[in-house]
């Protein structure tokens, strides 16, 4: 087994009679992975299982080859920013990170250096001396992120890490995730904000009611949903001609002219053949300005797979 994977093998977790997650089998490579699903989908349960805060009722989990029950080994490699909004009482932001690092066995000077470094990284240097209890929601979110990053882990597990952050910090945080991912680390992020997930993820895990309904790269997941026609938006100078040519093909389900006359929305059962047709039309004089897949995003995929009954935030 490769040791750079996070693997879950038929993992289930029940809280008494209540289902947390059921029969989850995943193999997550390094990069940014988003766990997507509405509240109660099982995202936090899955993260807690990977971090060993709870144990699976059934199944087996390995994080870089380690069992989460070996917390003394695991947390040398894993940083987890939980959603729990409680901190040890009476500590300032700096003391919080410093005390946390002391528990790793670092020396006093090393703890101070790492704490200052990570606090600067999350943009909290000015507030480091203030009590965490007095922090705003966004600052608490950032200090939790700092806690997860402080010991430079290979796996970052972040539960709704972008909640409550202002746009500037949000963008800096996303860049931070990208940097970690390009260094070959795991960044596992849960979110119910789909456009965010689209922006940052290398792969997604879609969850609903404790089950994994789809996983992989978002385009790959979309292409596997055969029963739903693919929507493609084409901006061109001659939309009516393009629509009529398209309608001659049997794999085209619908061609809809955009109201402003700048293009056409095509629904097709075979995207590959349509793209070939598009190339042919372009060579034969239709001036195509842009082609955009209109529904290979998480929102559409989620909508197709789970439907409106558990709609997440767009």
């Amino acid at each position, binding site marked *: 087994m490769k040791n750079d994977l996070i693997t879950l093998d038929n993992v289930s977790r029940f*809280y008494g009679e209540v289902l947390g997650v059921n029969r989850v089998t995943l193999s997550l490579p390094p990069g940014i992975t988003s766990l997507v699903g509405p509240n109660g989908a099982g995202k936090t349960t899955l993260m*807690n299982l990977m*971090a*060993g*805060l*709870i*144990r699976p009722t059934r199944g087996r989990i390995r994080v870089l080859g380690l069992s989460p029950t070996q*917390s*003394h*080994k*695991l*947390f*040398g490699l894993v*940083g*987890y920013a*939980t959603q*729990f*909004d*409680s*901190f*040890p*009482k*009476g500590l300032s932001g700096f003391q919080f990170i410093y*005390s*946390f690092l*002391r*528990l*790793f*066995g670092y020396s006093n000077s090393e703890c101070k250096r790492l704490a200052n470094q990570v606090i600067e990284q999350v943009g909290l240097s000015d507030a480091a001396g203030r009590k965490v209890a007095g922090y705003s929601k966004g600052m608490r979110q950032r200090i939790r992120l700092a*806690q*997860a990053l402080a010991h430079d882990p290979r796996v970052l597990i972040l539960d709704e890490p972008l909640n409550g952050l202002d746009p500037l910090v949000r963008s800096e945080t996303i860049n931070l995730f990208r940097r970690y991912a390009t260094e070959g680390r795991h960044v596992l992020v849960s979110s119910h904000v789909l456009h965010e997930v689209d922006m940052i993820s290398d792969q997604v895990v879609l969850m609903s009611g404790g089950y994994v309904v789809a996983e992989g790269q978002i385009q790959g997941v979309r292409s596997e949903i055969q029963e739903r026609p693919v929507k493609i938006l084409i901006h061109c100078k001659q939309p009516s001609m393009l629509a009529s040519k398209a309608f001659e093909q049997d794999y085209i389900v619908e061609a809809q002219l955009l109201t402003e006359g700048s293009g056409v929305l095509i629904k097709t059962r075979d995207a590959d053949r349509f793209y070939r047709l598009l190339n042919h039309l372009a060579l034969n004089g239709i001036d195509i300005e842009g082609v955009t897949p209109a529904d290979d995003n998480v929102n559409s995929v989620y909508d197709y797979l789970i439907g409106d009954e558990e709609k997440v935030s767009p």
Partner: protein
Amino acid sequence: MMKLWYKQIVSVVRLEMKKTFFSKRGLWVYLLAFAPVVLYMVHSVYAIRERQHLAQLATEHPISQAAFNDIKTGLSRDQVVEKLGEPYWQRTRYQHIGNEKERSFVFYKYTDGKNDVNYHFEDDKLTWINRRDPDTFPQSQLIFATSFQFYFLRLAIFFGCVGIFVNLFRGEMLDKSLHFYMLTPMRREVLLAGKYFAGLLATAVIFTSSTALQWWAMLWQFERGVIVDFLAGPGWTQFGAYLSVTALACVGYGSIFLAVGLLFRNPIIPTAVVLLWESANPFLPPLLKKTSMIYYLQSLCPVTAPPDKNMPPLINLLISPTEPATTLTAVTCIVLLTLLVLVLASRLARKLEINYSTD
């Protein structure tokens, strides 16, 4: 590895110290611990002032010992006043009983400078003489032993340990802050040890300070010479023994309530069960006695507390007398019992899940 564990334990102790020593939730522990100190101090201040007052009265109105010895029941009030002079304090009361004529009850107080002598007259005849001795040293020692064994060990330290040790895990689960430790590469056993030492340090400091202050407050009323003589004799040994018993009580009860905090969501029922077991100790058969902490702690106390004179004879019959354990046996058993409980607690800690929503 040991060095890492040591560092982690020290870090946990540092973090926990603030919570155990300065939490508002734990103020009542200080009240439990230091209430007897206040009582001993008030008593000592009162005893010293009383003694000074009696000495001053005796200087102003000296009465010979022979004159006191001359007073016998049956004498009239005038005869008593003739021999001793006017009392320094008196009170008169009149009472009707049925159709009988009114009767008078008069109380006189005299002093020889050290003791109070009370005379009780009924219808002008002396019917009762009471000589109230001042607090003597042996008396105070017995009072200290009784209060230490029946209040301090069984209630103050017991509930103090409940308050501090139960909260080490359970309190953090309620505050939803226990995950702070669980996200570090620290063995659960090491976390448990760190928390136990933090609780032990807090309770040992609070309660041994209280024991030392109680001891000092108890001695305070006596003259310097009496204290020096006592300390030159068994004094320091007794003092050391009381401090050690206090610390051992924290060691033993601490481990039990740490485990209770891990095992039970609501610690009230298990605490009540342990309290009942410890309180029922005098009535238990000898073999079962040896399974309670209080048996070993009492065995280590330097002065045996006198039995309760007001105990009904029937209950007295139920008490099963048992020889106290030797010092070595008592200390060994407390330490072994503590280790056993801590080993069990560490097994629980290993399986502990952070699942705040269900707590």
